[in-house]
């Protein structure tokens, strides 16, 4: 690994991604054992620093850390203390004084993991920052696709939903593009960033055209509580034009798989029947999430600044 921290898929080269996926494939086997624990990170401390509420991702990192025998500490500062930006760094410095071996950061503002990485000596893993990146989600999505399809190179991946506000979409675009897949995005025009095609993707406002020949269809969660009225008229209207069901999936390839980062709004992004369909790999994604996070902890945890500094040029 060239970088000390995992801040985004944008920084990863193809060889790095392949290394993480390969490692995660072996980690999956550990999860299939009776005793799902190996002593690799014994005596190491992993801190989950989650400024933004999250149950699934935090639990996934926690299980991953524990399967590697690390001591996992969950740290969720109250949201009121983040109004001043310096308090984030103070929190980070306080943590650093406790000598963790890896810090997992989630924050609702883009760039916070990077700021924290700059003051910490422990490596930082980004677990989602604003609308910027969510690298471990993209990695687990790629692992799932690789398992289902045997490859990533040359596949067509269609991402449907709120591309503009989605860190999952952004990380997946970087990741799948770097691995040689064709990436398409489909959404109402208000949810497609104006410059999205500079990332090497094709933007569609017609779901049918975007699905034509797709191997992988990834639906994103619609945050209806935040978006209704400003980005699209109503949830029903969105679901009528961009919701996926069995009939619409027929536009994609016969063996297309359906993915969703969860939690699913049943009947909005995906119909009930499609959520539970054979083509849906949503629960495999969750299972692979633990394996990916074990791989990331194995490859990154404990690489302190002093040692990694020589390998890396940091400002």
């Amino acid at each position, binding site marked *: 690994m060239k970088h000390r921290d995992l801040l985004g898929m944008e920084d990863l080269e193809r060889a790095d991604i392949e290394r993480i996926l390969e490692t995660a494939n072996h980690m999956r086997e550990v999860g299939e054992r009776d*005793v799902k624990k190996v002593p690799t990170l014994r005596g*190491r401390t992993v801190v989950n620093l989650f400024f933004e509420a999250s149950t699934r991702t935090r639990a996934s990192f926690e299980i991953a850390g524990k399967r590697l025998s690390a001591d996992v500490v969950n740290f969720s500062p109250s949201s009121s203390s983040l109004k001043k930006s310096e308090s984030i760094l103070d929190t980070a410095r306080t943590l650093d004084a406790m000598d963790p071996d890896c810090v997992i950061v989630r924050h609702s503002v883009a760039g916070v993991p990077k700021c924290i990485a700059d003051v910490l000596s422990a490596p930082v893993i980004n677990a989602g920052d604003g609308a910027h990146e969510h690298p471990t989600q993209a990695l687990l999505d790629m692992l799932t696709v690789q398992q289902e399809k045997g490859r990533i190179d040359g596949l067509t991946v269609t991402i449907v939903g709120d591309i503009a506000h989605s860190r999952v979409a952004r990380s997946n675009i970087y990741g799948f593009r770097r691995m040689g897949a064709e990436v398409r995005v489909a959404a109402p025009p208000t949810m497609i960033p104006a410059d999205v095609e500079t990332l090497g993707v094709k933007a569609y406002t017609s779901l049918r055209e975007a699905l034509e020949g797709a191997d992988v269809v990834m639906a994103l969660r619609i945050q209806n509580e935040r978006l209704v009225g400003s980005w699209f008229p109503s949830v029903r209207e969105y679901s009528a034009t961009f919701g996926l069901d069995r009939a619409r999936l027929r536009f994609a390839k016969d063996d297309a798989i359906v993915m969703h980062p969860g939690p699913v709004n049943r009947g909005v992004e995906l119909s009930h029947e499609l959520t539970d369909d054979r083509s849906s790999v949503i629960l495999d994604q969750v299972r692979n999430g633990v394996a990916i996070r074990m791989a990331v902890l194995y490859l990154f945890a404990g690489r302190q600044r002093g040692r990694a500094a020589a*390998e890396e040029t940091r400002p």
Partner: protein
Amino acid sequence: MRIAHEIVERNEEPESLFLVAIPNGGVPLARILAANLRDVADVDVAVGVLDTTLYRDDLMISGERPALRHTEMPSAVDDRCVVLVDDVVKTGRTIRAAMDALMDFGRPRAVQVVGLIDRGHRELPIKLDYVGKNVPTRTGENVRLCGANGVLEPPFEVVLVAEGVAA
């Protein structure tokens, strides 16, 4: 072939044997050994592969993490006589890691170790049960196993290489 005979002599119930190879070198050897056991004792012995990387004692000392390898344990280890198979044994640290890994899979009745080449230089109190050949080496030398015609099967040829020479 001689090792297969020794294993059968030592173990009264060859059907409870379970060969566990340590990758990468142990894998072809375990397969050859299983075939020999079939000839010698007419038993089909289970063969597994156990990667010891996650159990190594030097993971956090070296900078870059080593690549993981395949693990496949087709049979339970409980009440079996597990025979670990490695190609070259030196410090004994890999065998220690393999034993710890094995214990996480269950409680074997006994654990025995095959080392095709014993180089000496032990750093842990580990003794091999079956040795193909003792090859005294100096630190700085490496051992390479070669089969005839580039195929890894007996008769093996042992080549000493100075450290740093590419395989």
